[in-house]
């Protein structure tokens, strides 16, 4: 139930980050990034490889906690709550902010169990039939149903690269989080599968907040409402997608989107 305050926020920003710094040991990977991410919209992170997109994305659901050498400073709020507050339960946070990783990492379990896992631990299904429904619909949304429906009991690790990627997407949406972070969800997908996932993203946007990392400007332009451009750990520019692509304010952004970079 959104409270009045939350409802207020909703029109403003779902995630708000202020002066975020991330270090890996001595490396300063994210430098002073501040950004507001709107609810019910798709935000795309773009930028050259190694600029810190994944790193920043991982901060948003505290997945960086799992890397021993990494250290996060600054303020990140979701629905007005600081997620780095010691009282925050990262588990609840991650249930609310789901993630699809850059490298597909299915569990060494059956395809069914891969997708059902999240629903099981969050008690989303009251019975086997409901669970089956969740699995089927998630796989359908991720465009994997046709390929997977006859081999639900086979291990998820025995799939092709693109299938694994879609499996991971299915796994993430099966939990129906409020925010979904997707790190290059279509990198291993063919155009048709990509189109399906983009469709899915567009559909999800109605209820969820989505952040997507992509290398394809076209994709960013197609699916996102807002785009953030990172470069060398710095958030160079953030704004409405059409503004960024048609009328970038920063030289670096312009260079990047016109392919003149480096």
């Amino acid at each position, binding site marked *: 139930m959104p409270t009045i305050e939350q409802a207020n926020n909703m029109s403003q920003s779902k995630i708000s980050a202020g002066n975020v710094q991330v270090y890996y040991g001595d490396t300063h990977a994210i430098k002073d990034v501040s950004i507001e991410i709107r609810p019910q919209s798709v935000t795309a992170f773009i930028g050259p490889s190694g600029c810190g997109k994944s790193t920043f994305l991982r901060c948003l659901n505290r997945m960086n906690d799992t890397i021993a050498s990494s250290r996060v400073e600054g303020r990140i709020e979701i629905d007005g709550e600081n997620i780095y507050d010691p009282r925050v*339960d990262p*588990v*609840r946070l991650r249930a609310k902010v789901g993630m699809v990783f850059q490298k597909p990492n299915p569990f060494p379990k059956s395809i069914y169990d891969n997708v059902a896992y999240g629903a099981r*631990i*969050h*008690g*989303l299904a*009251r019975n086997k039939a409901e669970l089956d429904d969740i699995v089927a619909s998630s796989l359908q949304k991720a465009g994997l149903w046709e390929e997977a429906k006859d081999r639900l009991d086979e291990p998820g690790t025995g799939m092709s690269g693109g299938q694994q990627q879609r499996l991971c997407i299915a796994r993430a949406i099966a939990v129906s989080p409020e925010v979904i972070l997707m790190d290059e969800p279509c990198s291993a997908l063919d155009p048709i599968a990509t189109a399906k996932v983009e469709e899915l993203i567009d559909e999800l946007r109605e209820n969820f907040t989505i952040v997507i990392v992509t290398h394809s400007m076209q994709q960013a332009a197609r699916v996102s409402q807002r785009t953030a451009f990172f470069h060398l750990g710095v958030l160079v520019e953030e704004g409405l997608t059409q503004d960024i692509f048609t009328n970038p304010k920063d030289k670096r952004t312009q260079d990047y989107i016109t392919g003149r970079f480096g």
Partner: protein
Amino acid sequence: MSLPLVSAVLLVLAVAGYIFGRGKALKTVGGDSRRLHSLSGYYGWNAVVWTLAPSLLLLVIWLLLQPIVINGSVSSMISEETAAGSSLDLVMSDVVRIAEGLDLAATQGVMSAEDASSIRIELTDVRDRLGDVGVALGSDVTAETLRAAQAYREISATGYLLRSVVVIGAALLGLVLAVVRTNPEFRARNAVESVVRWILIAAASIAVLTTLGIVLSLIFNTVEFFRIYPASEFFFGLTWAPSFGGGSVLGILPLIWATLYISLIALAVAVPIGLFAAIYLSEYATPHVRAVAKPLLEILAGIPTIVYGLFALLTVGPLLMNVFGSGGALGVNWMSGASSVLTAGMVMGIMLIPFVSSLSDDIINAVPQAMRDGSLGLGATHSETVKQVILPAALPGIVGAILLAASRAIGETMIVVLGAGAAARLSVNPLEAMTTVTAKIVSQLTGDADFASPEALVAFALGMTLFVVTLGLNIIALYIVRKYREQYD
């Protein structure tokens, strides 16, 4: 109520707690488990924890305190004279035995319950009647002890009743509290997980407590030893020559030297064989070969060490004698007896093969296939892949396995006694007989010397020193692993 009964009641309450906790949680959200903070099962477990944790704690405390309290009040009934004859402690155990006998007699129907509590020594031969129900007593029962026993029975009966009431009350209270506190926002998973986490911590601290216990159980006697024997001679002495009549020379250096020497030889045998076996099993062998060979090799770890000892003494030792002894195959006379460091080391090495092979095999097997593919795809041979990619990635685990083997080598006695001999000696010749710290700990502890003499107490000092030495070695090992650890994926 007896202990099993109380436990059974607690168990039933725990089950009830699970059902109620889970049920309440589901009810508050109208059966829609998605509106709960945690999985419904966690609410059940939360109730279980609340039911069991405080009550069990109470029960344990009660179990510890009740005998003390009862003993205190009953022992006041025993007169000075009786206690002076033996000790209060013993009289009390007699009292307890009589009380138990009376209980038994009452339950078996040999005596009526009133009889059991009012029976008088003047009227019956209690020892005989208790003997009938199978409770043997050391001596005849005196009026005093009988009265004490009857008092003991009474007080314990009340104690048991009280205990049941308190413990079950606590369980009920916990249950009710947990169920009352259950609401959709309640973080049941976190609550249960924090309990689990405490259990994990408790488990980890057992290892620490064990260390503490070892140090404590060694320290007093060690200190005692150093009071009667100069520490400098112990630590820096080059001779080990205990003797019954006193005047022993107890220098640890020859023992430490032989310990390290034998362990090194054992590892020199076990590590290459074990590691190659592990590599072969995990990388080359067909699943069938692996499924058979691995458990077979593991039998080597299960053969009692006495067999290895005899094997060293009767087979390997004479074999080495035939090679290195006088008139042997080599025509040299380097070996004067079948027992030697080499004999023991080699045989110990055989025993340790599975320690290295099985564990390493598991670890190597856990290295992801992508690593192998990466290397093979570059045109590396399988062996290059193993040596340069897989082994480094599996290093921490392999070092763990080797450490385990080394530890076992250091702690082994039987093979040393039979294979390496009992004489302490400082020598670099592996064909000479020597003996290790552990073997000497055992022999001094199980010997016939005066238990308050340095010859017996030295066992504790040896144990303590070995403990410190291996601690040092382990620190070095940890450092090495940290330095070379490679994290894949």
